[in-house]
């Protein structure tokens, strides 16, 4: 009944990790359960809500729809790896400043999407920001303060 497990190496938040996983292990569960990185959340389980967003080689992806084995030897960044210990990344600080979170469950996913977005493009219009957030759902804020936080960051980068 039980199938052989796979030895899997990957870099998570800059650290080499070696895991022994079942084929069916999702990246989300490998991060949360094997590595204790619970900042990445399980939301819709359908690939639409974005609560499970992490970066793989700098691109934002859904960890709930990726097998852990698909990211063999790749670099994964989660919310825990965004800033140094105790410090806040400018995106995190901007979210707090703008009141861009309420319950906070979607927040790590939004911040990881924002990171990928701002790494790719420095200047964005409001419409572009809203479109770029189409893979993340927030049920609390109505998005206005999230959009405000991101636009404030793009203005920061322009300066």
């Amino acid at each position, binding site marked *: 009944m039980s199938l052989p497990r796979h030895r899997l190496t990957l870099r998570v938040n800059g650290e080499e990790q070696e895991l022994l996983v079942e084929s069916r292990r999702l990246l989300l569960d490998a991060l949360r359960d094997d590595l204790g990185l619970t900042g990445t959340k399980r939301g*819709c389980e359908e690939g639409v*809500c974005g609560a499970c967003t992490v970066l793989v080689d700098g691109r934002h992806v859904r960890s709930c729809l990726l097998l852990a084995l698909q990211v063999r030897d790749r670099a994964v960044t989660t919310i825990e790896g965004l800033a140094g210990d105790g410090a806040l990344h400018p995106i995190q600080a901007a979210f707090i400043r703008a009141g861009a979170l*309420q*319950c*906070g469950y979607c927040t*790590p996913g939004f911040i990881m999407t924002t990171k990928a977005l701002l790494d790719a493009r420095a200047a964005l219009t409001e419409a572009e920001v809203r479109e770029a957030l189409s893979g993340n759902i927030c049920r609390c804020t*109505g*998005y206005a303060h999230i*959009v405000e936080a991101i636009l404030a960051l793009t203005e920061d980068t322009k300066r």
Partner: protein
Amino acid sequence: MSAAAGRGKLTVVGQSLPMLGAHDKVSGRALYVSDLKLPHMLHAKILRSPYPHARIVHIDAERARRLRGVKVVLTGADTPRPIGAIGAHKDEHILAVDKVRHVGEEVVAVAAVDENTALDALELIRVDYEELPAVFDPEEALGPGAPAVHASGNLVREIRIDRGDVDAGFASAAVVHEATYQTQPQYHAPMEPTGAVATIDASGRLTVWAAVQSIHRNQLRLADALGLPTSRVRVIQPHMGGSFGGKLGEDSTHYIAARLALACGRPVRLLNTRLEDFLGVRARMAARIRLKMGVDPAGRITAKETWIHGDNGAYCGLSPEVILVIAARLDSLYRHRNVRTLARLVYTNNPPSGAFRGFGNPQMAFALESHLDVLAEQLGMDPLELRRRNSVQPGDTTIHGWSIGSCELSKCYEETAKRIGGPLRRRPRAPADGAPVAEGRRRGIGIAVAMHVSGARQAADWDGSNVVVKLTPDGRAVIICGEGDIGQGGPTALTQIAAETLGIPPDHVTVTPADTETTPFCFGPMASRLTLVAGNAVIKAAEGARRQLLSIAGQLLEASPEDLTIAGGAIHVVGAPDRRVTIAQACTAHIFRRDGEDIFARGTYDAPSVVADRKTYLGNVSAAYSFAVQAVEVEVDVETGVVRIIRIVAADDVGTPVNPRAVEGQIHGAIAQGVGYALFEGFALENGRLLNGNLADYPVATAASMPTPETVLVDGWEPNGPFGAKGGSEAPISPTAAAIANAIYDAVGVRITSLPITPDKILRALRERGGRRDA
């Protein structure tokens, strides 16, 4: 109201401070129930009913029990005690007993070493059902020969209200309009599905970490359902990933986790999948509302008659309270003289309904505020003017006996009209923002109004709050409070109120996590009660702590406490800043002395409201009422029926906004849920089966589908509120759907009376009206 809470210069209340816990949330450190793991923990899964109505003939779970890794399998035979609110309808069990009454009802629960094993076990369970005739429409369910969902009959509650002379009112009307409105079940869609972790200690004492809004309420109900003394059940609220009424604990999740833990003696974690969350939580009640209203030539409402059928679904949670809100609450928005209402709440074999932000008001607001626009048009009156002429005013006692304290509706109207660009009477119009409109598109503007309570006194005759403010030896304050946090920012407001009262910086105040073991009894955040009810209790406790602080400082400084003031982290003699002790010194000195103790003060507040009369429903149920006015500009594609929201203006009277940015966030979020309610959210049910139980098939508002609402917090002051504040989270969800319906009518001249207003409905209405251009 005490002097400290008076209308003086405020330094902390009224500031847009960051939310408590924000740092943990942006860092991914905030722990939600799904993040909790205990040693030796098992994982639970639930087998649910595939039928809307069926007798359970036999359950064969032997193969599941024998599967390696499965530790316990429970059925309804193990859960004989009914669950539900004490003293209310207890019509269900933790697991189905004898019958299932809706698709998704919990039938068998399994705990195993991991989730996959539990899922494998479910596939080995065989349940023999005998299908029974089912009923899905509340009016049909009341008809002769309808299948009985429960042996007690399908009528759950009937409400009859008759005030004034309704017939004479209609006779004196210049215009009478009657129409029927239909609303749909709406799913809360919190980003975190419901879940619980339960464990017992060696003596069998139960601890449950549960995503529930009201820990004490759920403690009582868990103890009752499990047959345990209350003191043997401890409920702790971790961070909650959204709730909006969906996690009031009407669903079975935490009961099942607790029952499994008791059965196997090990920690058990039960996390709902998204589909299970859809099926398990109690969606906004679908209501059919027939409304007849008359107005006189001056636009004054002469009479209102309402017939309501609420679809309770298979079981009652808070739905009997919701139907009363649908039936009566918005009657206090206008100066009615003649009102007659017949509301019936009816069992069906649909999934159960219950509490959702707005608690019945969004349903009635859609009907009422759509209806008023029709009356305004028939009278040839600006719809805003019609509302202005009928709105309640400060000092009014409404037709249901509500005492309106503060009410800044006039300012809300003024601000809304100014921003959206009134008057609103229907006429050809260019877009308010001057942008060109593509061919085949039409723009329109609509407004709507709603109100909400700030706490509501229910049958228990208590709408109070209990808190303790404790000062630590380093001069910081802790609010010991069980109200909890569902993510809306209530506790942040409490820290601001405490800081304002104590005269210390707000970041020197924290709030304990909600834990029935360590916090006084509270109802938790519901009915928009937290700011007003708990806020007043915090003021009292903080005043008590302040008195103790000044007393010890007076002893240390050899001065009378009346001559002392608190500023800059220290207490000094007024006029002699050098005669000072730091707050930390005072707090420490309060302990280290003969008979010393912490500075520790309790604050208890109960709202000056009454329980509405059981028969007449008369009575002022809340300490204060909040008001929301919204105007929406839409663009309708006349060839496809697609509606785009162009602008939303929201003017809210929340009294003093304790944290304006947080209040604004509440309004934004409420509007986004209201937009979904208006345009695209709703259960697709086919014979009680949910066809769209996932967030791909049940869309909620995304960033790209929303504009940034223009929000105005009008200047207001609630005399019963802490520093003039009242609730703000629920009123703004209620007007949105009607404002959009009115805007669509303004744009293309068709009135859609059922929610959601899909493009399909608009296109059909346009065709029926003959106004559609062919492609």
